[in-house]
């Protein structure tokens, strides 16, 4: 059984580990760190201690022979035959990681009809495209996609497997990782190769974005991660790149599934998925009434943007849930986010802080949103926004 120990002769009682613990499990008693049952063995104190006085012991390591694994496999995502942009971002990131240790990048594409897509994947960074085509692979379904991918991983032994942290990636990857008895890190925002061990350092936000945790999977392979869309950069397509296309032989029961998609209901006409929006005009408690969202709609239309809202506006029933930005809503990464009458509590912040440009309008100059926006305007949104609309129209003439 794993355990944590403070070496009494080495601990100097400096107390640095006390605040390093995210669980408040360490106290100082007689100049010695004492660890309570609140401890989850997360390892934060072990790395904080400059004296090597805290040691976490684990049982024996897993049995995977990690030397046999090499290269990076990306899980491609497509809808209606179009490769999702997040896949190209993963290929770009995989390429960068592969350059570091000279390994190769492959991608698995499961689709109805591949057409020119394998070439597109190669031009964006893949060395090998593993391809399966079948009418039953037109839509994502958990069981066939996981079964086929698991078999490919077992055969090809990639050291790293990446998928986008979309609803597809976050459905599929945990199932694969559990079945292959290996580790998975969710929603990474940074990946790098540890120069000492050659392992993948996977960094992700946790505790509502309050901390960044770096996670490793040292004893099992592959090292699996889902990666937040719109964080990594895709390569500029290079038509001169060459690569191989390898067909996956489907087995008779590969396509069996206990779930079936009866229907796909796209978002209503004119309604955009806010996670894909480039501009979001968002309103919060300061909007005061549902009809007041009309001016935000007008501004959003002018900028070809979508409407977002804080939890306060959703709970009041002013805007529907698909528009909620934040911890219990969606995480968005638009180019521009205009927050109107939103205080900027941490639950909202975690959903929009990766926007390229954050503008905030709020009457209360002590609102937390002014602590992290790029440009803030202290004033009444009902006075300012109509002028903004007028000004945009004037300048466009």
């Amino acid at each position, binding site marked *: *059984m794993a355990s944590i120990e403070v070496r009494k002769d080495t601990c100097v009682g400096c107390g640095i580990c006390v*605040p*390093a613990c995210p*669980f408040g499990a360490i106290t100082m008693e007689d100049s010695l760190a004492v660890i309570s*049952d609140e401890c989850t063995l*997360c390892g*934060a104190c072990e*790395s904080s201690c400059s004296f090597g006085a805290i040691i976490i012991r*684990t*049982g024996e390591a897993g049995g995977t022979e990690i030397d046999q694994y090499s290269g990076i496999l990306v899980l491609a995502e497509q809808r209606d035959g179009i490769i999702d942009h997040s896949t190209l971002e993963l290929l770009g990131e995989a390429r960068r990681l592969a350059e570091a240790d000279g390994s190769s990048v492959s991608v698995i594409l499961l689709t109805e009809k591949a057409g020119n897509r394998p070439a597109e994947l190669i031009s964006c960074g893949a060395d090998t495209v593993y391809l399966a085509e079948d009418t039953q692979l037109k*839509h994502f379904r958990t069981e066939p996609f*996981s079964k086929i991918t698991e078999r490919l991983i077992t055969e090809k032994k990639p050291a790293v497997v990446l998928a986008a942290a979309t*609803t*597809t990636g*976050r*459905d599929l990857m*945990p*199932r694969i*990782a559990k*079945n292959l008895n*290996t580790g998975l890190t969710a*929603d990474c925002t940074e990946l790098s190769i540890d120069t000492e061990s050659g392992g993948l350092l996977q960094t992700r936000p*946790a*505790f*509502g974005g*309050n*901390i960044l*945790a*770096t996670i*490793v999977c040292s004893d*099992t392979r592959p090292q699996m991660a889902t990666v937040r869309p719109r964080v990594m950069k895709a390569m500029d397509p290079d038509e001169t790149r060459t690569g191989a296309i390898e067909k996956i032989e489907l087995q008779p029961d590969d396509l069996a599934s*206990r779930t*079936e*998609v*009866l229907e*796909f*209901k796209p978002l209503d006409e004119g309604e955009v*998925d806010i996670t*894909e929006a*480039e501009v979001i005009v968002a309103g919060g408690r300061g909007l005061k009434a549902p009809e007041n969202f009309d001016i935000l709609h007008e501004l959003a239309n002018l900028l*070809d943007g979508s409407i977002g809202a804080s939890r306060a506006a959703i709970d009041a029933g002013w805007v529907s849930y698909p528009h909620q930005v934040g*911890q*219990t809503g969606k995480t968005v990464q638009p*180019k521009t986010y205009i927050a109107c009458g939103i205080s900027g*509590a941490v*639950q909202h912040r975690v959903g929009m802080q990766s926007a390229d*440009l954050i*503008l905030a309008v709020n009457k209360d100059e002590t609102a937390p949103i*002014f602590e*992290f926006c*790029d*440009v803030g*305007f202290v*004033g009444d949104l009902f006075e*300012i*926004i109509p*002028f903004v609309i*007028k*000004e*945009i129209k004037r300048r466009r003439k």
Partner: protein
Amino acid sequence: MRIVVAVKQVPDTAEVRIDEERGTLIREGVPSILNPFDEYALEEAMKWRDELGGTVTVITMGPPQAEAVLREAVSMGADEAVLLSDRAFAGADTWATSHTLAKAVEKIGDVDIVMTGKQAIDGDTAQTGPSIAASLDWPQVTFVGSVRELNGDSMVAERYVEGGCEVIRSSLPVVITVLKDANTPRLPSLRGKMKSRKIEIPVWGREDLDLPESEVGLDGSPTRVVKITTPESTSNGEIHHGEPEDLAKLLVDSLLGSEVF
């Protein structure tokens, strides 16, 4: 209908503050709560129990004090609760957590559906639900907005994905993970509160679940946290005061600098 709801006790991340000097989390006085998404899973489970009959059993894996969230769930209307607690479970990542929860589901027996929140607000991984399904070799439906139909052998649910919503039918047993949109969780009732005070909550440890040490807690976890840092503060924005018309012009100026204008 036997439904198991897997819940988690989490720190109220809204209350977490950063010690700016040390760059660490201040956890003192931060209350522990029932993971908000799990409340929607619990409500969805109880809604269908009320309609079809059966039992709702809440389970959680955690330290002894995690019992509090089970009592809270009972006060809201859950019928039974089991606490999975053992020093050997400490340090579990999503692999080991889902493995342990799945064993408990097997021990409970004859379960038709496992429901859980789409993710917990401390780790935000959304991995435990699908991993439970993999451990049990059951189908899974994730990111469910609502369960539309449910009977003895199948279920139809709406799954929210990028760009729309899939209507999915699944055979039972199945694991589903629930979004906030599913329902409005009920408040604890007086009768529920009384029951929650009296109910005996069994505690199952590693040996009760017949699990080897190598499959639980830190030893059973393929991943490990090696470093925790706080994100760089981005607070160097410019703040403008003034007349609304002037502020509006400045706002449009900032838009001009971006690509959206």
